[in-house]
């Protein structure tokens, strides 16, 4: 076992397997994110009302389209495990890379915790409907996280194939609910009267505030880049899988808003734990209820599964580069997975899943994601400046540069203000955490990092250096 622990010192270290195609990338991206349709997004309705929830859905969709465009160009060129982490390392510098690695780990680990909380809440709700209220959720939370960590430990192909199947089923469940309700399967009518009678309960500030949880519709789509080192053809698979993923999510998000807002009073919807399942309950159809129960379960499991995959890759990459102790940079000799990183992150997810409220955990995840999107704006500009289009071969070149970058920066700034409205303490606490962690890295940890090893792409020297 010792021969896999040290990393850079060995000339023939074990590599991750290149076994994934575009469908796996789609499944990884949509699989992580689709749960955003099944829970969490509806808090945006609570923060601003029905109209604000819909506007947040589309504005966040625009933000993530920019993210997907930018990410596709950079990642199809910097095809290395760790996704944005590897980008930051090559384009901005080690400290930025360390921070981006932390963004990814925090965003995905908190999302994983949120998924586990939802699994427990859903089972509790169903048990209550069957006359067994007061179910202890904790064993199910622990079981969900442990099972998925084990699956990840055993291999990436099996993990993401599993994700592909359950993500497809969860997506089809949303479409089935939408079509069924359109064709009159619901015993309770769709009612959008609140759109006119109570359109903006908080006024225009509610629209801005709702963008906070509007991000939850799509948060994590950028996770497709984490598998860059494990796809057979990064230049083709990453842009194709990511853009297909964002289109899938835009459709699913709009259908979700429509069905839930029509079937559930907005005041209830704004604080519901499992909105799509609740919408199915309102229809009175047992078949739809079972389908959306399965859909919610599969969506949360697929998301948690993808989160473990992505968070562990980011942690592994930091260990391999010695940004963290190199012990984490080991690859399993049989399964070829970053097994130590997978196991290490399990208790952290459990601590938050078992001890923090859902909206708080969701906010922690959103904040880390938001910091990552802000990084993408100046990262993109620096990428084009340091290596103009004719200097290196890119797998994909996104159009209209720098328009997506400018739009993304404006939307990120708005989203910070949205989070500040109501969750300012968490925002400040998280910023303090990243500032202290950055100082710790720069003044202590960086001494263990091999300088030259931080640049591994076969590119010319960046312009301006």
């Amino acid at each position, binding site marked *: 076992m010792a021969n896999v622990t040290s990393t850079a010192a060995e000339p023939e270290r074990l590599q991750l397997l290149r076994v994934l195609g575009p469908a796996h990338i789609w499944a990884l991206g949509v699989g992580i994110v689709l749960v955003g349709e099944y829970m969490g997004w509806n808090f945006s309705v*609570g923060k601003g009302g029905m109209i604000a929830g819909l506007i947040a859905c589309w504005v966040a969709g625009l933000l993530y389209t920019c993210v997907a465009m930018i990410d596709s160009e950079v990642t199809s060129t910097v095809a290395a495990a760790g996704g944005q982490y590897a980008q930051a390392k090559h384009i*901005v*510098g*080690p*400290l*930025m*890379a360390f*921070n981006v690695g932390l963004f990814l780990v*925090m965003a995905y680990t908190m999302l994983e915790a949120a998924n586990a909380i939802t699994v427990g809440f859903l089972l509790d709700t169903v048990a209550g*409907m069957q006359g067994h209220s007061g179910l202890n959720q904790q064993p199910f939370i622990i079981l969900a996280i442990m099972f998925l960590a084990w699956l990840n430990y055993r291999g990436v192909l099996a993990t993401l194939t599993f994700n592909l199947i359950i993500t497809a089923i969860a997506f089809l469940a949303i479409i089935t609910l939408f079509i069924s309700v359109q064709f009159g399967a619901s*015993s*309770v009518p769709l009612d959008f*009267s*609140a759109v006119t009678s109570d359109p903006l309960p*908080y006024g225009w*500030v*509610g629209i801005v*505030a709702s963008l906070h949880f509007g991000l939850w519709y799509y948060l994590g789509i950028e996770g497709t880049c984490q598998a860059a080192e494990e796809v057979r053809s990064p230049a083709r698979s990453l842009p194709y899988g990511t853009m297909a993923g964002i289109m899938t999510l835009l459709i699913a998000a709009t259908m979700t808003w429509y069905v839930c807002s029509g*079937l559930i*009073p907005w*005041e*209830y919807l704004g*604080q519901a734990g499992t909105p799509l399942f*609740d919408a199915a309950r*309102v*229809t009175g159809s047992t078949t739809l209820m079972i389908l959306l129960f399965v859909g919610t379960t599969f969506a949360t499991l697929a998301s948690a599964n993808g989160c473990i995959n992505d968070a562990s890759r980011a942690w592994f990459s930091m260990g391999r580069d*010695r940004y*963290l*102790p190199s012990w984490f940079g080991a690859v399993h000799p049989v399964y070829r997975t970053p097994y130590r990183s997978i196991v290490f992150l399990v208790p*952290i997810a459990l601590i938050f899943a078992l*001890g*923090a409220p859902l*909206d708080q955990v969701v906010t*922690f995840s959103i904040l880390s994601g938001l910091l990552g999107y*802000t990084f993408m704006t*100046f990262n993109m500009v620096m990428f084009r400046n340091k290596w103009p289009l004719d200097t290196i071969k890119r797998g994909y070149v996104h159009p209209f540069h720098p328009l997506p970058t400018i739009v993304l920066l404006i939307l990120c700034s708005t989203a*910070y*203000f949205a989070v*500040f*409205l*109501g*969750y300012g*303490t*968490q925002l*400040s*606490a998280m*910023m303090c*955490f990243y*500032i202290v962690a*950055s100082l*710790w890295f*720069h003044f202590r940890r*960086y001494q*263990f990092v091999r*300088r*030259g090893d*931080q*640049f591994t792409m076969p590119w010319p*020297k960046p312009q301006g*250096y």
Partner: protein
Amino acid sequence: MAYKPPKQSLAGQIFDVVTLLVLTIGALYVPLYLGLAGAVKVPNPIANPTWEALGQNAAEQQQWAALGITDPAAANDIITARFDYSFSWSALIVMVVLVIGYFVMVVRLSDKEYREVIDERFGDKKR
């Protein structure tokens, strides 16, 4: 001459991991533990609530019933709860300074490190 990092002891590695763990859990849990975190959503329940008084039409009443809530009193808190979006400008300025200051600090220190990386990778010792 390439930079040769010192070898880190096992105790040092454990210390670094524990430091990060304490930072992570501390920063995220302390606001929760002190009751400082979370949005302020305050119920404003009305006296003697009816569905009509709570602004719920016939279709919405059916929806509440399908969700298992038939008594308007049980929905009183949910329907009347509202966020408080009033904020202090000084708190907003602190947030802006923290976010911008953080990114400026990280980019500047990263650039310093990045120049060492590029110098070593491309063999430029002039800097």
